[in-house]
């Protein structure tokens, strides 16, 4: 057991350092591509409301509009948790997850790649 645990200990640090190294090296490229994707198109609340199904799901969070259609199957909770908010401003829901806990930094980092524009002020 002692050898197995030591092997796990070494494997843990090797994998954490490897994953971290990959992420650091790849971040610049990803950041460039996200910047390139940044879309400053202004989207009205009416246009947002037209994308209100699980086959075409847009949401506004903190004034930014995202197209989450491709992401829906990957969300850890059952789909209905997200699809209820398609076509709407989901800022409060995103901040609290419905019970007062914010989303993780990993979730924040996911957002930019789904950005389609900015929500037009009413």
């Amino acid at each position, binding site marked *: 057991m002692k050898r197995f*645990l030591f092997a796990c200990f070494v494997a843990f640090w090797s994998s954490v350092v490897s994953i971290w190294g990959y992420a650091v090296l*790849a971040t610049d490229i990803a950041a460039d591509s996200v910047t390139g994707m940044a879309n400053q198109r202004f989207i009205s609340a009416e246009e947002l409301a037209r994308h209100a199904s699980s086959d075409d799901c847009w949401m506004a969070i903190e004034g930014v509009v995202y197209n989450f259609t491709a992401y829906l199957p990957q969300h850890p909770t059952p789909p209905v948790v997200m699809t209820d908010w398609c076509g709407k401003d989901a800022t409060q829901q995103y901040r609290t997850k419905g019970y007062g*806990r914010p989303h993780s930094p*990993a979730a*924040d*980092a996911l957002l930019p790649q789904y950005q389609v524009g900015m929500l037009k002020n009413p």
Partner: protein
Amino acid sequence: MTTLIRLTTIALATWPLAVLAADLYVGTPADTSAWLHWFGRAAGLIGFAWFLLAMTLSVRLPRFDLALGGLLALWRVHHWLGAISFVLLMLHPPLLALASVSAGPQAVLATLVPPASTWAVWSGWAALLLMMVFQAPSFSFFGSPRYQRWKLLHRLSGAAMVLALVHALALPGLLKPVTAEWVWGSLTALAAAAFLWRLLLSRWLSRRQYRITRVNSLAPRVVELTLEGPPLRYDAGQFVYLTPLDPALPAGRGEEHPYSLVSAPQEPCLRIAIKELGDASSALMRVAEGSLATVEGPYGRFLPPQHDGAALWIGGGIGIAPFVSAARAFASQSGKVNVQLVYCANDPSRAYYLAELERIAASQPGFVVHPHYFAEQGPLTASFLEDCAADYRQRMCYICGPSALLNLAETILTGEGMPRRHIRMEEFNLL
């Protein structure tokens, strides 16, 4: 009470599996990434739950251990739970990071190294690092640790528990937040109570003071201490934690170490056999008569309370101690016994309890002692056991001694067709 303690322990160990099954029932993860995410959270859930259970089981309340098979069995459970939870908690961060690979390197980086303001994640990291510090000596990562240093480092488990609790409450994972507060709150309360009992309360409430009235040198590097003090209720074959307080001791003063009782439970004094194995036990060879010591216990469940069932005892070195206690107990009683004792020693000079055991055997027809000397006869063999008792395969076997003797005796007995459940072994191997 015994059943209640066992059922509670099983329930505490298995509830995370029920949570995971229920979560899978509600919604199966859709793809590899979601599965990795689920496994990462499951590893965190089971890992923390079993870490808290391992802490709770380390409470070492006298007699509480009997319900779970004795303190040595409880330590083995504690050790395994600690090891499994350690592995699971080491899997937790890499699995979550790998789960976010499909979302891009920024998500991976944010999972592993989030902004400093994300204190809940950093609290989890700090708990895991502390765990590595205090678990490393338990599993001899960097060589065998000193007993006292290992015990001191184990106190870091309290800080690790608090940091992990902060992490688990702020990021409830697979549990709903209200459920998480109840579950982690109550499990942490149990673990914290066990931790505080060991750290602070047990020394005031559980240790009792005795006076060492006799230091009897049985052989070079082996003594038998006689202690007078409050009566202690125990069974033959149990052990206690002894903390010597003699100010003249060069080492081990105020440190607690486990030693076997060799007195009979009905004796007015406690007698403890000690062999020189480290600095603390070495110092006890010359402890002053009249000095004080505290005793905490009794612990362990090695021998049955009655000895009328056919039994084979194999004791080697200082491992003869529990058998001496049992033999002294039935020496002064009229009950029927059926015991064959194989007393393993290197040579006659190291069979320091043989004369007394043979005297007891002379007055107890059902008790027979067979000395075995390694220097003259080599390692113990099946044919030697056959000569001692032709029916030894049908007896319950109790073995206590150094690990080499335990391994050899177990190999012989199982090789001769003895079921493993008929063999009970006792070894003081804390690490």
